[in-house]
């Protein structure tokens, strides 16, 4: 099961994790990652995206992960729109028989998503708004999966 969603609404990480293994007795491991808006100087963050391409890229990233590791299911949920500090932005959850595969695929999906999914973050702060710059560290994180 590969399920990819781009939505304005919040999501429920527990329900997504549960959905990956509910009714099955063959799944030993579910690794998940929940990304949240970090506050600090930021009042809010708005995520713009490229409808159509976003879903397509997330799906391609998930399909790629499924060829690299023995996985039983992948859920990716990514929100767009205006989000406040502490709000959930993204969930990646991966089911597998093997914990190393689940962990690695989950980290891979996040690294890949950060550099390959067409989202752009605009931060609102007391000093005004600004577009978040892409991080070199994200490119480096993604590069380690290159093959």
């Amino acid at each position, binding site marked *: 099961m590969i399920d990819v969603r781009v939505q304005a609404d919040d999501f429920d990480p527990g329900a997504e994790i549960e959905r990956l293994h509910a009714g099955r007795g063959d799944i030993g491991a579910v690794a998940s990652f929940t990304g949240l808006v970090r506050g600090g100087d930021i009042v809010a963050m708005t995520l713009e995206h490229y409808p159509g391409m976003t879903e397509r890229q997330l799906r391609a990233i998930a399909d790629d992960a499924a060829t690299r590791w023995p996985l039983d299911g992948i859920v990716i949920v990514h929100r767009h729109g205006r989000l406040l500090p502490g709000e959930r932005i993204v969930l990646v959850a991966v089911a597998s028989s093997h914990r190393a595969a689940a962990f690695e695929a989950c980290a891979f999906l996040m690294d890949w998503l950060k550099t390959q999914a*067409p989202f*752009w973050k*605009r931060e609102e702060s007391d000093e005004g708004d600004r577009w978040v710059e892409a991080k070199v560290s994200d490119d480096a994180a993604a590069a380690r999966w290159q093959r």
Partner: protein
Amino acid sequence: MIELLYFAWVRERIGKNGERLELPANVGTAAQLLDWLEARGDGYAAALADRPRLRLAINQIFAPLTAPVTAGDEIAIFPPVTGG
């Protein structure tokens, strides 16, 4: 015709989400397309001047500046992505 889409600060500087334009006969690559768009006005110039900070997708797939562009293409221009 080509369908152009602009995102993030590219969108803001050009001042629109996108537009449909007739592809000139002498524009055959993404790089040539950017050169041609850049000459369309100050907003375009501000948005497109800094090529290393631009990314392109042709028909929803990331593409390099050397990629060919043809009539009917959906071509998106945007900064490096920052999701996740």
